[in-house]
């Protein structure tokens, strides 16, 4: 039995479908913010290396950007919680 068949079999059961749905929502939803935050912090560190005097401005804007990117991950968490516990 292939992995896909197993997935369909699990999805026949309501609890199994919920578990799969919540897992996919969180897993895929965390992918985007993870890439985004990685790029943001990487570039911020680069900028900090080039211009250490601008530490305060860079840090503030970096954290602001990270917060926006992270918000998407939080929506995924919200969706996963709703799927797993509310629906």
């Amino acid at each position, binding site marked *: 039995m292939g992995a896909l068949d197993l997935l369909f079999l699990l999805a026949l059961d309501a609890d199994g479908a919920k578990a799969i749905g919540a897992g996919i929502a969180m897993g895929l939803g965390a992918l985007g913010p993870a890439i985004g935050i990685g790029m943001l912090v990487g570039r911020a560190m680069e900028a900090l290396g080039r211009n250490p005097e601008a530490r305060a401005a860079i*840090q503030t804007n970096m*954290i602001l950007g990270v917060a926006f990117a992270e918000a998407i991950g*939080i929506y995924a968490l*919200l969706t996963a919680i709703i799927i797993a516990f509310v629906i």
Partner: protein
Amino acid sequence: MSRIRLPLLIVAALAWIVVGLIVARGPQPEIIVPAEIITKAGFLNISNTMISAWAAMIILVIGAFLATRTMKLIPSRAQNFVESVVEFLMSQMEDIAGSKNARRFFPVIATFFIFILLSNWMGLLPFFNAIGKTEDIGHHIFHEIEEHHADHKPFDEEIGHASGWLVDDTGIGLVRPNADDAHFSMGASADAPVSPEQALDKYVVFLAQTFTDFDPEDHGAVDDGHGGFEVTPAMLEAAIAALNADADAPRLLAGDHGHGVPSAALGDELIVGGIDFPGQKLALIIPLFRSVYSDVNNTLALALISFVMVEFWGLRTLGFSYLGKFFNFSGVIPAFVGILELLSEFIRIISFAFRLFGNIFAGEVLILMLTFLLPFLIVDIIYGLELFVGFIQAAVFALLTLVFAVMAVEHHDEEHEGHEGEAGHDDLESQGSPGQ
């Protein structure tokens, strides 16, 4: 020296894991998302996260009062500590917001930081999530069976909270050995409902299984395909005999037809009016303290305070022109941008609330699960990580509120202040360019 030390460390680590595996045996803990209600005061439910939040407040208020009661020019130790914390926060805020704004926002932002930090770190104390009152599941399940019997209503779903921890009569919820199978399931569903009488039989067999060495398979238990089995009269009689033979096992109390549930297998021969648990009982711990921000209500409260304060500062500083940021009808694109700004203002509440809740609750679950998965060694490392996460989340909450407040009080038409580090920037650029 180090040649001896490394094997010694490995042996110590393994011994620590073995000790953990011996001590922390038992059923997997239940993960409960909403905070448990401890008592009710009128219409108000007092939950354990509220009690923890009040404890944090009391510690902060009394601590701050004692440290600054007699202020001296040459500070005492406590005063020195409080001063250094305030100075550190002030200097950090001045870096970000400038001197004028930092002074203005300091009371609220610093309170956010200190309160969240203390709450998060308090949540890692050992008595959190461990000591509390117990809800006796044995009585709870029996009462539910009795109620269904009185209403002539079959069970079409599982009884809630049927799995629990064995505790002794002190009510302190240490997990006991041999509690691995303390999970009661009737196997009821909407397709295959279970009558209260059948549920009673299954529950009696379950009690015999949990508290004595009774094994239903010795008495002809055949799996019915739903994880359960048919209870035969002979099996039930054997289970009752096993319960009666053991002095520490629960007692079945007699009932009459006005009060009690008759058995399905034995009919009116056996009517159970109640169950008495001597010594140990099957109970669910309702912890008295739980990490404050593992409850989304508390994080939402903080998020709302943060939102209201930011809007208040914006309106106070800019007057009605502050609203021009959101309602700008000079063109299609500015109007659209205004709507987006307005939306993002409200979405901030959600992301504030769930960022803190998600991080703290995930940490709680991680620690709880790892304690029982691979006890003590890995969980120690995670404790260290959680100390860090608690600090970072407190800092992020305070910092974001500060940044949003600064954005709200800025005149949005004006350009930002000139870059002071221009000269240094050029120097670095020219130095760096040959290498690239």
